[in-house]
Each structure stands twice: as C-alpha cells, then as structure tokens.
C-alpha cells in the first residue's frame, strides 16, 4: 500500500508511516490517563523528550500543525486524544486540516447530504 498520496489529501497509515509515527502515537496514547494529560500540560517539551519524539514531530506539535503530525506518522485516533487536551472536536480538527473555519467545515459536511 502506498504511504502517500495517490488519494489526494489522504495519508495511508501503513507500516513505514506507523514506524515513523511510533513515538508520537505512543505519546498520544498515554493521554488516556488524566495524570499524563496534566504532565503534558505542565511541561510539553519535557513530555516530548520522555517519548523521544523526532524533531519533525516536535515541530508539528509545537505549531499545532495537524497535517504536519500526520506527515510525521501520526494516527488520527491518537491525535484525537491530543485534540481533546486542546478542547477541540473533530469538526475543529477538520477545519484546521482543510483551511476552513469550523463553521465552514460544518457547512461543507451538510452540503454533502444534498446529493
């Protein structure tokens, strides 16, 4: 399965991507625990180090760059747990990835029902 690109706007989370993404996904998996979420909030940089994120992953995290996180091997299911820390839902995250406001993104969803 191609890692990247033959379906536009879609990154397949396959073996090579999951290998690259492992530290980032492992960190986000830890966010199932409230104490881990608190530890992250207290010192994000230290928390990146704890899970040995790559520089690419740290940069994407620092900039809250969702596409960057996906390109660094992030899995949306674990990234969603990070979005939870920021108080973002999947429409907010949808907007961030598509360059829309949350309201524009919601309208885009509705429009697809009109076919």
């Amino acid at each position, binding site marked *: *399965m191609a890692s990247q690109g033959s379906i536009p706007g879609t990154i397949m989370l*396959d*073996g*090579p991507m*999951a*290998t690259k993404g*492992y530290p980032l996904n*492992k960190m986000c998996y830890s966010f199932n625990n409230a104490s881990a979420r608190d530890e992250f909030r207290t010192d994000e940089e230290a928390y990146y180090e704890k899970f040995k994120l790559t520089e690419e992953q740290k940069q994407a995290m620092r900039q809250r760059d969702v596409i960057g996180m996906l390109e660094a091997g992030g899995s949306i299911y674990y990234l969603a747990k990070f979005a939870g820390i920021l108080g973002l839902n999947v429409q907010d995250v949808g907007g961030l990835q598509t360059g829309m406001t949350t309201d524009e993104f919601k309208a885009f969803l509705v429009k697809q029902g009109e076919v």
Partner: protein
Amino acid sequence: MAKIIGGVTTSHIPAIANAMANGLEETPYWKPFFDGYPPVRDWLNEQKPDVIILFYNDHGLEFFIDKKPTFAMGVADEYYNSDEGWGIPTIPPVTGESELSWHIANSLVEDGFDMTICQEMKVDHGLTVPLNLMWPGHNYGHVKVIPVCINCEQHPMPQPKRTLALGQAIGRAVESFDDDLKVVVFGTGGMSHQLDGERAGFINRAFDIECLDKLVSDPESLTKYSNYDLVELGGAQAVELNMLIAMRGALLGEVTELHRNYHAPISNTGSGLMLLENK
C-alpha cells in the same frame, strides 16, 4: 530478491542459557548437547545471513492471557529481553528490521492470516536462547531478527496444518521482496516434553526422530496430527513442534539435511538440532 537459504531447528529451553552463563558446556551433562552446535555455527558464519526469521513461543513475558494472540510478529528495529521472573540473565537488545517485516505483514494479511502486529515487543528465552546458541557470547547484534510468535500456551492453539501454511506464506512473502537479502528461518522449541501434571517428564524419542525425518522429507505428513495428537504423542509442550513445522513451511525450494543432533534429556526435553539447506 530476498532468498531463504536455509532453516534451523533448535531447542530453546532456559536451562541452556544458565549453562552458558555458568560455563558448563564441557561438563558431562551438557557436552553431548553443545557438541552438536559448531557445524551449524560454522555454516551460519560462512553463509552470513542478513536476516533471521525466528518462530518461537512467548512464555508469559510479552503476552499474558488478557490478550493472547494466535500469531504475532514483530516489525520493530529493536527488541528487548527482560526479567522473566526466575533468574535467567537478561541479555543485550536484539536487532530488528522493519522493512522486510512490514512487507511480510502486508503479504500475510492479504493472504488471510490475521496477524497481531507488534511495533514494540519484549522477546523471551524462546527467542534469545537460540540466538545465543548460534552466536555465543551474545554476538548476534549484526544479524537482523524478525520474531514470529505462535501461541503454544493456551488452547485453542493453531493446528499444525495452519502453522505450515503460515510458514509457506512467509516463504512466499520473502521471495517477493525486492532487496537482495539472505534469510535463514529458525524453528525453535520442542521436541517432546511435558512439564505439568502426573505425566511430567514424558519424552518420546521415537516420535521425535520420526518428526525430524518428516520435517526433512515430507512435512505435509505432519499436518495429519492435531494438537491433541501432539500432546498425546509428545507431551503437553510438544505442541512447540508447530514452530518447527512453520519453519519448514517457509522452505519452498529443494531441501537437503546438512546436520542433525538429537539428544535427550536436556532439562525435561528431547532436543532436536537440525540444519536444512533450501535451494
């Protein structure tokens, strides 16, 4: 193209690790066992395989019965050994290999094998004892290992016909990999033994020898056994024969036996060392 150049069967019992850690190889108890190994080591040193695909069973280090896979395989670049609770020394990390591993994983799932795929896993004596037997002094860091773990602990376990099919599918996957890699397959564990119950200590030498013969010439014939048959004929832990069968499945070419050493007892088991060339 990657190529499987051969297969090895070997015991993986923890007592071997203790014997090596304590330098007992030349004592009367151990000598006939360890004397079997130099020809296999020499062959490996001559052939210089890049990758070892190692069939073993986890004995409760990585997997517990909360989530027990039938077939698990590693796709990591490194694997760690760890304290197993009863005093065999922890050994240095094992080098992994993720590209061929993922290629095999993709191919297996496509072929209808429902693998549990592990990006991080601890490997126990089932894997580390064979490595240390082949490269004593923990000199195995240069060889890349792909761990394939088969449930031999809790019934229901995969049947011999299924483990042979798994081995065959892995053989096909390796041969469809583009890079020029030399691969050797290890089937570890067995042979006849029973640790538990009033029947503890049961060993069936004749059955073991027959299995080694069949592994060379007619592996399909071993798939007539159910796991129940294996327990009856070889003892409760003789289901570990499934790892040897999976190894043999991966050898899809013309197979020649280059070496064999059967010795019993080692600890409570019949120990079968065999080297097969695959052309």
